[in-house]
């Protein structure tokens, strides 16, 4: 149990907080009433972070890169301040963390595949937060839970000193000094009769021979102690998700929640969700119909390049293609008048009469000037990947997903070889596509084609973020070009204008 130490200022802060610790094992669901908007936005924010983590794994990024990207994402969407940071509304942050975790549990408990991916991403997030934890806070947190370990007596340490040293891989000094409590150091899970834990608590360490085993007990050095904690977190979450899955049929009756959950789990499958409504204002400049062709060659993701080329080639485009491309252009900065000009020129097989009657209305509609006057957002990668599968005469969709491998390779090389993509890059991209990680493939192409701006592998479209929206792709690309011509751009990484 938590032992009250000498009174210190921090202890007072602890006691005032509803959430005493920054780290959370998520043992108990949030009991406060949750407003439905928070329910979804909190979850979406967490989802962005988890999707980035998963993407980083798919890209085989080194641990340091994964950690850094995740920290960047957390700063934006899921800030979690240290208890010593007195200026922040810590309870609010921690509540958001708590609620969002539990909402996503509901969304991700439903298939084994989703559970597996969720557990991996969540455990990684926990590991990263754990690594950044303040040592004092970490000790308090660890003491607040029962991890079923006991410290090895010094007599026992003496008895097995050689073996312990060998298991630690280094001389005794480092072996004994690293860790939480500077003095007591080696912990071991307990054995049966004595309320103790077996070697099966640390299978990863056993497999790598990083512990000393005796009679079924693992002696774990403090250096490896985190292994027990992560394994415990993971096992705990796996079990909880299975229980939630069993309880979920009852939840299906709540019609407000189910569509949100569907949306959330789909978002994860498509590599995160993204709305990109602010790109126009961010770039601040309007574009004209004449500029589209040039911009398409320099800044469009493959899906939009493909639509643009199809329009030029066929001088016509079917409904879903016009919808996907038209909304994209709107958000890119094409005004309604320029849009009408653009489409009038593009759809040159159509008579003026017919165009004005049918197509013009649709364009005005999509700009919110007709019908129910809604401001329709452009389609995100998730929507493009999951909805309205293209038929044989269609050009919409995502080339990474909807093209045959041969066609995709040809298309990519013809679209992007002028920007530095070579056939040597193709195998890597095709490998990612084969794994079903289309947005990762698109991100990789962005990196390769923007190398001249200093973009490197794992930079993504900036800050290691991967592509989740065609307009994000185009906006980031234009930003880079702008930065290169004007020198430095004063903009925060989100594409929003920095407020000061």
């Amino acid at each position, binding site marked *: 149990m938590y032992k009250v130490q000498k009174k210190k200022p921090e202890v007072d802060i602890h006691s005032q907080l509803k959430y005493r610790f920054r780290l959370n094992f998520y043992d108990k669901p949030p009991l406060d009433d949750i407003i439905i908007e928070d329910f979804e936005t909190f979850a979406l924010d967490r989802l962005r972070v988890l999707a980035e983590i998963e993407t980083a794994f798919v890209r085989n990024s080194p641990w340091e890169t994964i950690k850094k990207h995740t920290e960047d994402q957390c700063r934006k969407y899921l800030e979690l301040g240290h208890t010593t940071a007195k200026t922040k509304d810590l309870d609010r942050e921690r509540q958001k963390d708590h609620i969002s975790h539990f909402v996503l549990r509901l969304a991700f408990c439903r298939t084994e595949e989703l559970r597996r991916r969720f557990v991996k991403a969540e455990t990684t997030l926990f590991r990263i937060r754990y690594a950044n934890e303040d040592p004092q806070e970490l000790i308090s947190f660890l003491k607040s839970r029962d991890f079923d370990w006991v410290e090895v007596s010094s007599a026992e340490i003496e008895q097995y000193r050689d073996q312990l040293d*060998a298991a630690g*891989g*280094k001389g005794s000094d480092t072996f004994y000094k690293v860790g939480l409590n500077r003095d007591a150091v080696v912990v071991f899970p307990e054995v049966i009769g004595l309320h103790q834990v077996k070697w099966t608590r640390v299978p990863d360490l056993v497999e790598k021979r990083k512990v000393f085993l005796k*009679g079924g007990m693992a002696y774990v050095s403090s250096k490896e102690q985190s292994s027990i904690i992560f394994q415990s977190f993971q096992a705990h979450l796996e079990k909880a998700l299975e229980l939630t899955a069993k309880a979920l049929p009852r939840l299906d009756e709540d019609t407000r929640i189910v569509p949100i959950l569907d949306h959330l789990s789909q978002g994860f499958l498509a590599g995160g969700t993204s709305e990109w409504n602010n790109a126009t204002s961010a770039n601040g400049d309007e574009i004209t119909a004449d500029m589209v062709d040039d911009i398409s060659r320099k800044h469009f993701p493959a899906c939009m390049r493909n639509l643009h080329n199809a329009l030029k080639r066929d001088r016509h485009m079917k409904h879903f293609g016009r919808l996907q491309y038209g909304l994209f252009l709107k958000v890119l900065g094409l005004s309604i008048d320029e849009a009408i000009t653009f489409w009038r020129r593009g759809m040159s097989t159509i008579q003026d009469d017919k165009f004005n009657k049918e197509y013009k209305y649709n364009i005005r509609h999509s700009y919110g000037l007709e019908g129910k006057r809604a401001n329709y957002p452009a389609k995100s990668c998730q929507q493009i990947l999951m909805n309205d599968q293209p038929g044989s005469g269609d050009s919409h969709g995502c080339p990474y997903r909807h093209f045959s491998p041969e066609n995709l390779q040809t298309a990519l090389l013809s679209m992007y070889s002028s920007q530095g993509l070579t056939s040597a890059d193709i195998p890597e991209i095709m490998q990612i596509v084969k794994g079903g990680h289309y947005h990762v493939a698109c991100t990789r192409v962005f990196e390769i084609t923007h190398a001249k701006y200093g973009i490197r592998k794992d930079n993504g479209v900036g800050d290691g973020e991967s592509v989740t929206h065609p307009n994000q792709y185009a906006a980031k690309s234009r930003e880079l070009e702008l930065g290169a011509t004007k020198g430095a751009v004063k903009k925060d990484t989100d594409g929003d204008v920095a407020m000061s």
Partner: protein
Amino acid sequence: MSSAEELTPELMLAFYRRLYPFKSIFGWLNHELAPTKLFTHREFAFTLAGDVYLRYNSFKDAEDLKKQVLALNPTRFEIGPVYSARPRDKKTVLAINFKPILRELVFDIDMTDYDSIRTCCSDAGICRRCWNFISVAVRVLDQGIRDQYGYKHLLWVYSGRRGIHLWISDKEAMELTDDERKALVGWMTVIQGGKDVHKKVNVRTGLSPLPPSLQLALETLRTTFSEFVLPDQDPFHSTEGWEALLQLIPHAETVKKLRDDWSDAPYSTSEERWDDFKRIIQKQEKGSRLRKTLEYAAEDIAIQYTYPRLDAEVSKHRNHLLKAPFCVHPKTSRVCVPVDPANIERFDPGRVPTVGQLLGELDKAVADASDKEGQDGGEHRSGEYGFYVPCSYI
């Protein structure tokens, strides 16, 4: 090795009827007298003549098993896991209600994995000399598992031709998940890499001592290396052999020196060549990095030529089937008898009785006995033929 006697169906049937210890097998699998799920939910798989393979059989008790064995007269049968439902009901239960839940932790060591380091036999061949590799494997694993994992109920069984099986029946061992088995096998697996990999022992992180699991075994392995491998197997005598050794020495200058010397000494024995290598090590300054590197390399070489070589896949999955003890090996006719690890050196695979010999002796014994007072020639007599049946559960 004498060529195998012909295994006729009649011979097999007589063996099952008169000699096979069904009650002992039942007791060993079931852990107690009255049948439990450990037996009734256990999979048995039969191999019949003509390679017909019958899976998912299960039985009420020893008598039930015996009846079926006598009816089918299989060439051999295998034991699988305890499932969450009776295997014979597999077709009628939902798939999610039919999962392996318990299983002995099993290991399989096969002589063919030693072909790259043994010189006396190859492929299916085995003799008393190369059996020493199996002996040391048994000693190292038996000691290691008892010490490190604390398991107590270990049954070693000769596989009938050129290998040995280990069955561990401790409750905790039976409950291990596949992931945990994989972790344990990872701990136990030291020799890794196929034909293209020269250095198969990679257990150190940098220039560090061996992990503790190996330190315990090191004494045994070293002794085996110097007292058996070098003088008997003589693995470094041939050019191919000593070139393989040089591949494992991570110091170009030493390798060059030895290669020059050995090219001119085609008749040197492995012991002499090993001494050459050791002399070079001793010439290096004590405590120097180079000396440490070479010393560790020498340790790793001794390990590579002696450490148990496991068939890891057998151990990792609960639903893997393994031939039941006391079955007959179809190629050799020899009975898969349990082996006492304490006397493993005295075990001679060439002297394990064949079915025909056993039945012949039994006939003789029965005849002798009936001359006196007419006893039955039942199962308990199998003890006379040197079978070692661990009685921990019986």
